């Protein structure tokens, strides 16, 4: 699929996924969270061998199962039927989450409701009083990789920045997000705050500062 910008200042979701995918190195062990991050699997560079982990107990996960290949015993974390690649392995939940918690995965890719400038993540609950809570592996994924990448649109549909000074939604993890891939820019987050490392199209730092209300550094990192 094409990863060219669809406008002069923003990326589509596929373009965000494609950009993120380019930062996953050859040989990496990667968990793609449910929802938006699964798009990344469509853009993994074909000249790299990247091994996908699914938290429900598998390494070497292949693409979604096509019709006629559905195996109810072989599903991903989103409970979607998937396939098995040569060199796959299965393990139980204790071992699978130990693998995550122990920092063995190179990259986790997650979606978010909010991310703070220091890398706090809110992606499991909107805090709505009548909502039925469900956390699943979100908190394990948030702390469960050498690098945690988040992908999301920078602003909500109402135009409110989802990159914030301090998260107002319930937290998933503290200071856990390393890189934030959005439709407008790519950020590096640390205890020092947010640094823009790539601007989408004609987007400017001033625009981003206006949108987020944050003081942002800029340091272009060559891919």
């Amino acid at each position, binding site marked *: 699929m094409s990863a060219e910008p669809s406008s002069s200042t923003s990326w589509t979701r596929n373009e965000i996924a494609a950009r993120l995918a380019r930062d996953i190195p050859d040989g990496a062990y990667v968990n793609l969270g449910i929802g938006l991050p699964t798009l990344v699997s469509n853009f993994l560079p074909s000249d790299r061998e990247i091994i996908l982990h*699914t*938290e*429900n*107990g*598998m390494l070497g996960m292949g693409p979604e*199962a096509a019709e*006629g*290949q*559905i*195996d*109810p*015993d*072989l*599903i*991903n974390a989103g*409970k979607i039927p998937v396939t*098995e690649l040569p060199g796959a392995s*299965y*393990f*139980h*939940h*204790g071992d*699978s*989450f*130990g693998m*995550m*918690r122990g920092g063995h995965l190179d990259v986790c890719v997650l979606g978010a409701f909010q991310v703070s400038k220091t890398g706090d993540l809110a992606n499991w*609950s909107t805090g709505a009083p*009548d*909502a*039925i*809570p*469900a*956390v*699943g*592996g*979100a*908190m*394990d994924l948030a*702390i*469960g990789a050498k690098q945690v990448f988040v992908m999301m649109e920078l602003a909500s549909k109402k135009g409110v920045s989802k990159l914030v000074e301090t998260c107002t939604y*319930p*937290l*998933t*993890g*503290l200071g856990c997000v390393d890189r934030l891939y959005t439709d407008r820019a790519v950020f590096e987050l640390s205890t020092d705050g947010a640094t823009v490392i790539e601007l989408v199209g004609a987007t400017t730092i001033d625009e981003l500062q206006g949108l987020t209300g944050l003081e942002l550094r800029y340091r272009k990192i060559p891919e």
Partner: protein
Amino acid sequence: MISKTSESAAAALADVADGATIMIGGFGLAGQPMQLIDALLEQGATDLTVVSNNAGNGDTGLAALIGARRVRKIVCSFPRQTDSHIFDALYRSGGIELELVPQGNLAERIRAAGAGIGAFFTPTGFGTALAEGKETRTIGGRDFVLEHPLFADVALISAYRADRLGNLTYRKTSRNFGPIMAGAAATTVVQVDRVVEAGDLDPEAVVTPGIFVNRIVVTGDRFDREEWADVR
């Protein structure tokens, strides 16, 4: 000669008591021990505490047990799903208690019960609402929360093959919670497609040693069921 095979699911679950804590394996439908849950429904025990990753799918299995008002409390990581309407309605009406646990902490608490660990410090959930009120500690510059083991009176799990000693193998991602729940329960009941001769399972490939299994219920080949038609 040891034989752990029960004559039926009903016989295997006859002694489950009201108020028991029951672990139920499975992640979504994969590895959910449907026949055992149906037998538990039939058996009638109530006021149960259920430990399971999800809170039921559709109208069958765990969802049916919850729908029959037999579950006082559920300990799980992900109750809300697209097809969890039975749990959802009961939860909103205050008809079921929920202890929400991050999935990895749920798994590790179950593993700790089986492995004789009194409590453990986990990084997962630190600083979040799910760690509120829990003891915390900074170790080597990292922040941890103290979590305690989860024990059960009975574990209901699903595996692929057993031998008469209760050694088990699983199939693909349906393994999920089975091996750790088998260790955490006073009585572990497993449903399997088939029981094979002792020695027919490769000792290197046994996933759950028979020491963790008390009763085996044979349910017949999964490939005979419609859902497995594609990979028969």
